[in-house]
């Protein structure tokens, strides 16, 4: 491309390298070296991930988590790193229909699998119903937990349609449609935390999509 719109990410990345080089020559040199060597790391393996329907080939070390592969190698930065220890849910993606914490699994373990991220929800300009519901119900403030919340909620609705039980369900021995109380939604979303406290609106958003899907 001849003219390229400079994104904030590009600008800050360039400024950081340039600024570092001007003020701290030794550190900048080391940083440049480490950036260069990270692309020639030892013991890399070919890993193929099918992300939002598109095949992506990576040459990575086994220790690269799925989260880091998405963000650092594929520039799919919609999925967030909140705690990196499976405690916040900001890194939630959907693998073969199941919501998981991408920070606590290795990319290499999912070679050949179907991975859905927040980037794959909208179809062009058409938002996914869950995205629309989050906006309509004001289910976010800073937005950092939001991609994880939305991916988690999308998978949750599918789990409910399969009548899966939760700790809040009165009797696990009974089968059939689950009665969707607010407590059920909260329990099923308990793996996604929100420091801004948008929970009541998140619950409303999830409820609206579930009820819409069952209508």
């Amino acid at each position: 491309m001849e003219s390229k719109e400079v994104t904030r990410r590009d600008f800050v990345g360039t400024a950081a390298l340039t600024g570092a080089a001007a003020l701290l020559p030794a550190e900048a040199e080391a940083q440049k070296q480490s950036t260069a060597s990270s692309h020639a790391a030892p013991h890399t393996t070919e890993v193929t991930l099918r992300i939002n329907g598109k095949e992506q080939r990576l040459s990575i070390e086994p220790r690269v988590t799925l989260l880091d592969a998405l963000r650092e190698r594929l520039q799919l930065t919609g999925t967030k790193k909140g705690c990196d220890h499976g405690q916040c849910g900001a890194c939630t993606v959907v693998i073969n229909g199941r919501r998981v914490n991408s920070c606590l699994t290795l990319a290499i373990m999912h070679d050949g699998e179907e991975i859905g991220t927040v980037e794959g929800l909208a179809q062009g300009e058409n938002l996914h119903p869950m995205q629309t519901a989050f906006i309509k119900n004001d289910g976010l403030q800073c937005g950092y937990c939001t991609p994880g919340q939305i991916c988690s909620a999308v998978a949750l609705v599918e789990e409910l349609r399969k009548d899966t039980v939760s700790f809040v369900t009165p009797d696990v021995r009974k089968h059939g449609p689950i009665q969707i109380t607010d407590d059920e939604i909260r329990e099923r979303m308990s793996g996604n935390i929100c420091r801004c406290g948008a929970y009541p609106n998140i619950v409303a958003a999830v409820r609206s999509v579930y009820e819409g899907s069952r209508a």
Partner: protein
Amino acid sequence: MRPFEYSRANDVPGAVKLLGADPKARFIGGGTNLIDLMKYQVEQPARLVDISRIPLNKIEELPNGGVRIGALARNADMANDPLVRQRFPVLSEALLAGASPQLRNLATAGGNLMQRTRCYYFYDPGFSQCNKRTPGSGCAALDGINRIHAILGASSDCIATNPSDMSVALAALAAVVRVEGPKGAREIPFDNFHRLPGTTPHIDTNLQHGELITSIDLPAVPGSGQNFSYIKVRDRNSYAFALVSAAVVLEVDGNQIKSARVALGGVAHKPWRTAEAEAALAGKPLNERTYSEAAAIALNGAKPFEHNRFKVELAKRTIVRACATAAARGKQA
């Protein structure tokens, strides 16, 4: 995370061979605890043997009414399985009480058995005194913040607790862990799977290096297994480990208990069953006095520490609540 070699095993013999060849190799199934520990450099395996694609995830009936759960069955699948929900509902409840939906989708049955304690001093290598991480270095929890630590079965070398909800239910159900290793296959009764700390807290289980858990067998319980409960007491409503938990299964005959299973979580290095407490319930009427007497026996000899004295009374009341809930269930399904 330190770099490591990675291999993928396609079958059990292959997995056993790969692990046996390297004393510093570990199996990885779901990885939800192992990868966490590797990020903190508490675990530093030189090689990971990925067993996640081995077809060991079936849940099937056994003759005599029991159920066999493949070691690679995901926690969420175990909890939602129709056989488990119908015949061993206490296990389904215990599984649903643990972790978060995302973690339950990845975590495996075998991995859940192998998860390590969440003692703060174990989990943070910044603390040098941890006999579980570094034998002989001491136990920082003994005179540290020991709110989440043991009140039963501890030693002066280690007062850590086992964090698994699933294991509490498996203890009450007298499960059998089936494994395969370089010397062949064997069965480990659940009570022998996890160890007490004693003078060897660095060894959590009686699994030998190179042995792979292949399945967990649940024998049929006396009675219908329908008078059950799993009560978990914790600081939050969800997504938190137990301060104290209790799994109870009662065999009920009219207004009387014929036999009982009671297991406690959050109180010891392994799920805690007391034969005397279970015997104290047998033949007794279904009322609170029965449950309280059994609870007192179960907590006999409890030794709390500075910050967890509350656990003794809490454990008693949790047993009482669990028994009352189990009694109220009835045969309705």
